[in-house]
């Protein structure tokens, strides 16, 4: 009992201790910093797996054994309150895994290594904080703190247009969070400013259905207004159309590891926010707006796919494919059926692994070619015949691509199938249109593959070396995850089933 009761604390603060360690290591010992970060993230990953093994899949709510609750600011009833359930657990494991892998992929970073890993570990703590917090204030603090390391990671280690990307990312997200802050304080007072007033779980269940408020003499429904506020806050993170414009810049400019984290984990914070905060707190309003959410999700799917198709920069292509895939998650959420939401959470996890693979692979290629053009601006080919040049790389790329496309037998298929099954009952038109998105997904990915991997080997591709042992080492866990969860998704589905069921049941009452 004693060992598990502090487990969430260990998970949350191990990276932070790692951060302090990084700062203490002398600047000259660059490899020591790398190994320290690797060991640190490895420990964190092991801790998340321990958490997974001790997780009780039959409990729908928060797992009592792991809950941590300590007063932080008593006069405002703000608690340091952590907890885990079936929705956050897959995200926690995903975070642990991706941060570990990305340390390996960051091995080639040479600029300001100390600062890089310090910020990197700082980012990890804040991401864990978002997924573990059960106190709205604490959640908000972690949600915002995350922007600081991201800003520097994109801004210092990014591509040529990094400053613009970093600032755009920061401002967009900050704009969303400010609306969330207003919503949070309003909820605090609607809850009576009492002991549970920042407690996310206590707010659940549609307590604010009948409340109204007046602005300039017009009466608004409290739930609907603040649902929209929270929605915008989270939608910017997902990103939902039309709030997605920061994403291509941030993804393309960020260094490989940060793109992976951004696409793999950070986007999921947005959808996690819907599942943990916006939907359960305002179930009535979310059902009311579910049509709109579904349509926005559909726009994401189709628009993201078309944008991806038009790209000549392969990283930008994958970035837009994230927009498209996160649209599927939104569709699954909007379905508000058990199958749909299960599919959405599974898609959050699967997209995390498959898109991480894509970004890592592009990073590997970039280290050899120093450009990412499928077609250069002057019309000549950027890559050609990679398949004969880099056989190992190509195999991994094919796995990643098919997983991302949703080919049966790989992970993307299961989650997308579940989403479609879930949403068909409610939105038939949207389902049919969204299937078009799948088709487009296959089209842009295969077209990209054809242009880069087939055809004649162009001159500069001839001296590329294939993946080295380190690169293979960090791709293996992701390949395994993509294949295993494609055939046997039960390890992920089982942990989330009870919690998702609970949420859907609550939503079905409205």
């Amino acid at each position: 009992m004693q060992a598990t009761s502090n487990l969430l604390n260990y998970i949350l603060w191990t990276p932070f201790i790692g951060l302090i360690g990084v700062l203490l290591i002398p600047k000259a010992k660059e490899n020591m910093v790398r190994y320290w970060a690797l060991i640190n993230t490895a420990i964190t990953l092991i801790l998340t797996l321990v958490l997974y093994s001790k997780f009780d899949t039959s409990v729908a709510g928060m797992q009592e054994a792991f809950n941590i609750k300590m007063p932080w600011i008593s006069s405002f009833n703000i608690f340091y309150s952590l907890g885990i359930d079936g929705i956050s657990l897959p995200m926690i494991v995903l975070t642990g895994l991706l941060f570990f892998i990305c340390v390996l992929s960051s091995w080639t970073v040479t600029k300001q290594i100390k600062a890089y890993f310090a910020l990197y570990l700082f980012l990890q703590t804040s991401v864990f904080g978002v997924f573990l917090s059960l106190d709205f204030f604490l959640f908000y603090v972690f949600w915002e703190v995350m922007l600081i390391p991201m800003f520097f990671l994109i801004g210092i280690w990014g591509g040529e247009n990094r400053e613009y990307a970093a600032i755009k990312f920061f401002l967009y997200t900050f704009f969303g969070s400010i609306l969330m802050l207003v919503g949070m304080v309003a909820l605090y007072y609607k809850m009576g400013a009492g002991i549970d007033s920042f407690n996310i779980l206590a707010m659940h269940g549609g307590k604010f259905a009948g409340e109204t408020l007046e602005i300039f003499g017009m009466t608004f429904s409290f739930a609907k207004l603040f649902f929209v506020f929270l929605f915008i806050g989270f939608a910017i993170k997902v990103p939902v159309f039309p709030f997605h414009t920061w994403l291509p810049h941030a993804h393309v400019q960020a260094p490989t590891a940060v793109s992976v984290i951004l696409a793999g984990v950070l986007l999921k914070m947005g959808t996690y926010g819907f599942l943990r905060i916006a939907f359960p707190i305002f179930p009535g309003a979310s059902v009311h707006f579910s049509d709109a959410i579904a349509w926005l999700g559909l726009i994401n799917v189709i628009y993201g796919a078309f944008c991806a198709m038009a790209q000549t920069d392969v990283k930008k292509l994958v970035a837009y494919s994230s927009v498209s895939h996160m649209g599927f998650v939104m569709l699954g959420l909007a379905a508000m059926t058990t199958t749909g939401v299960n599919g959405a959470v599974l898609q959050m996890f699967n997209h995390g692994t498959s898109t991480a693979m894509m970004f890592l692979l592009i990073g590997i290629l970039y280290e050899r070619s120093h450009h990412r053009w499928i077609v250069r601006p002057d019309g000549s080919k950027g890559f050609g015949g990679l398949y004969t040049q880099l056989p190992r790389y190509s195999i991994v790329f094919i796995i990643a691509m098919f997983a991302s496309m949703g080919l049966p037998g790989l992970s993307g298929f299961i989650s997308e199938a579940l989403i479609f099954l879930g949403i068909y009952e409610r939105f038939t038109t949207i389902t049919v249109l969204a299937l078009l998105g799948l088709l487009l997904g296959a089209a842009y990915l295969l077209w990209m593959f054809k242009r880069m991997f087939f055809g004649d080997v162009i001159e500069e591709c001839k001296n590329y070396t294939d993946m080295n042992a380190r690169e293979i080492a960090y791709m293996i866990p992701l390949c395994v995850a993509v294949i295993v969860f494609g055939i046997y998704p039960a390890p992920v589905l089982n942990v989330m089933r009870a919690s998702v069921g609970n949420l859907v049941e609550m939503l079905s009452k409205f």
Partner: protein
Amino acid sequence: MGLNYLASLSHYVPELLACLTMFGLILIEATYKEEKKDRGLLFLAAYIGLVSVTVFSIFNLGKPPIAIFTNSIIIDSFSSLSKIIMCLGTLGAVYLTSQSDDIEGNLKPEFTIMASGVLVGGMLLASANNMLVLFIGIETLSILSYVLASLKKNDERSSEAGLKYALYGGITSGIMLFGMSHIFGVLGTINFTEIAAALKGLTDAQVFIVLPSFLLFLVGIGYKIACVPFHMWAPDVYEGSPIPVTTFFSIVPKVAGLAALVRISTTFFADPGVLNVGWVGTLSIIAALTMTVGNISAIGQQSVKRMLAYSSISHAGVMILGILVISDIGTRSVLFYSITYLFMTLAAFYIVSFVNDKYGNDHFERFNGLIYRYPTMAIMMSILMFSLAGIPPLSGFVAKFHIFNALILEKYYTLAVIAGLNSVISLYYYLKIVRLMTLKPSESDEEIKGFSYVNQGVVVLLTVPVVALGLFWEKILMVADGAKVFIQ
């Protein structure tokens, strides 16, 4: 009701000490020979004087509120806390003066003396319970400020700043007196307590005169806070004055004006009615405009000092939001905001000042790549900028959170959203400096003399509360919460 004069004096120790400091400094300055540059003793005396004012104000903090000098001055914990903030601000500005090259050596004592004088005016303003005392406070504060603004005697911009400040100041004082005379004409008293009592039974015709009079009255205070539309003087004065003076102006007169505004709002306009609606409505518009205009003007600035000056206008707007809700929670949030604002502004201006001393200007490019030369300073500056923008877990966020809290409790949702959008705008220009410091290569490797270990230590010391108050703010909140405005 009131104590007699002698008994009153014992409650009036901080103000007396501040006066004493000022006179003591004049005497010490007179003993220096012309050619003697080092004025160690003078600064030592100033520190001792200001610290003792702070200490005695802290003693007053716990005492029950009391009206002294026949009810024309109120010593309550609210005014004491405001005084502590002003005093620390003065202390910070004086230390900066001793380190800065922006003020010539022989002018440093003059600044120190006049800053103590402004402090006396500010303290009077925070405690005033009588229109005349309030007016004396404002004038003490203003007249010395005019001189401070034109401290660089041979500099055209500085003289222009002083003249502008004086002209605008004279006009607003006149308008304020005009308003006061109408209030006196209708209500027959200048004492706040009696005015508050008289306001309860006004006829419609009287309200028709009294409300505009109060708005005229507001002009004088608004001028000191530099809120829109009375802010025209601020950028020029901030630009033309030496940096320590700018630092001083963006803290002490603002806090003093805000304190007076809090007292007036809570004493006169707490009861619902026409007066309340008019006053709160006016303040809402002023606050929204102040935040927005301050922020938008700050975006285009070339000089960091000017950027900080404009941003201080917008911070004043945010603090007015805490005032217009007219509640204990609002007052508390204003005080908390002032405390964090004090530390953030001081530390940020310190860094700007040291950079300015080195290069002769403080344009944004001077900060390029600071992190590669002075990593500690660059990190502190980043923390300060994030805090000013209101990113958790820094104290600037907590301060904004309290303002939001006060607004939303009283259901001012629109204002809360406007304030929120403004912090997004402000983030843009605060990030600009963080971006230049960390993302750009360094311009030169020259040493910046001002960043001595002692000065770096001082900046770190000032930044510690910015972080600490963001994480553990309960104690300070309790202090701010205890500092209630005394209403008889």
